[in-house]
């Protein structure tokens, strides 16, 4: 399978990438690791006529302690997240979830900003960043703006990013010592989650769902039930509320809701252990 023809532009900096996007408009797509975009292009589900390769913008690859939060460069690879000492000390859930993405080969290429910008509800990292209340820094021709994770995911593969914008940084609150669990249900080890559920317990309890609708979701009903004093088992029964899972070869919508209830309970229990 071979992608449709395109012109290739290699950007040496964020500024060059934004200038190239401005020049080529809607026909251009950013290429980071390519782990999501290239498969779509090979299937010709995506046919950009210009690819702007930001894969070598090295100064957007970092994990820094920024005082009250962690700053993660958008082009930091999953491999660099899963081996980061800064994350081990201040945000172990991000390190853990990065290690669950795809397989070694995918983690050697794929980037956190690429995964988030792609906006796939079946991806692992977007749901965690939603649960952690992360903030995304994006740059466009008019300068820089920040978007809260809760405002970022708009629909299936649709985000708050404008076509002429580049994500540059992900800001994650520190969550040292948080209880955490990610329950990922899949047929083969490297597959996307059929359903995933994650729980972060750090004072309050946040619960996020993977592949239970057009976007990554917070399990709001579960969180409210827990805050209202419900047991973990009772709260988990409400995991399907507010979701709109699709049906496919792996699961019907009803089965996905069942999985969500079971996986949320397991995630809550494991995060409390």
């Amino acid at each position: 399978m071979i992608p449709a023809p395109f012109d290739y532009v290699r950007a040496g900096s964020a500024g060059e990438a934004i200038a190239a996007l401005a020049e080529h408009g809607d026909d251009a797509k950013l290429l980071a690791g390519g782990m999501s975009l290239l498969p779509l292009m090979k299937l010709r589900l995506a046919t950009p006529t210009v690819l702007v390769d930001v894969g070598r913008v090295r100064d957007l690859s970092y994990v820094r302690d920024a005082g009250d939060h962690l700053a993660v460069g958008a082009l930091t690879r999953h491999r660099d997240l899963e081996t980061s000492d800064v994350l081990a000390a201040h945000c172990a859930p991000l390190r853990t979830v990065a290690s669950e993405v795809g397989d070694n080969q995918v983690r050697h290429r794929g980037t956190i900003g690429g995964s988030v910008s792609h906006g796939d509800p079946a991806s692992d990292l977007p749901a965690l960043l939603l649960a952690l209340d992360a903030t995304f820094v994006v740059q466009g021709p008019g300068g820089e703006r920040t978007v809260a994770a809760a405002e970022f995911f708009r629909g299936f593969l649709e985000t708050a990013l404008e076509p002429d914008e580049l994500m540059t940084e992900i800001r994650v609150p520190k969550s040292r010592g948080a209880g955490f669990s990610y329950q990922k249900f899949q047929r083969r080890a490297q597959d996307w989650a059929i359903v995933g559920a994650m729980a972060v317990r750090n004072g309050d309890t946040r619960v996020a769902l993977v592949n239970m609708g057009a976007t990554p979701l917070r399990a709001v009903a579960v969180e409210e039930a827990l805050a209202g004093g419900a047991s973990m088992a009772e709260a988990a029964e409400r995991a399907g509320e507010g979701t709109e899972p699709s049906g496919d070869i792996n699961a019907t919508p009803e089965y996905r809701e069942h999985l969500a209830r079971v996986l949320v309970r397991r995630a809550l229990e494991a995060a409390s252990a």
Partner: protein
Amino acid sequence: MRIGTTVNGQAHEHDVEPRLLLVQYLREVVGLTGTKIGCDTSSCGACTVLVDGESVKSCTMLAAQADGSEITTIEGLADGDELHPVQAAFHESHALQCGFCTAGMVMATVSLLDEIPSPTERDVRLGLEGNLCRCTGYHNIVKAVLAAAGTSR
């Protein structure tokens, strides 16, 4: 566009289409057919090669993205007639039947052992999750990797 690579220690320069995939570049332009195209959807790992020392699936990378990189394929492992330790371990442990996945398995193993020199069995099984074998049931592949790492009992 013009790209330059070093494949198995040898420098190459070619004019390529931007949409040329790395696996096609290696097989059809450089002429090294040891790297296999299996699923062509980045699931099976048969096309695994090393780019700057790290395993990647060459069916899901553009040749243009590898411009300036050092690439190692299965042909680059042996030293003359002497097999690379990972190749020798696959041979000794009967870690293949049809052999189609083997080039990718071996390259993924070389990268894995570079990152985890003394893996546990679990490390090996997780580390090779991106490579599918339909013949062996994986047991002998895991044995081979542990043997290559010198951690086999």
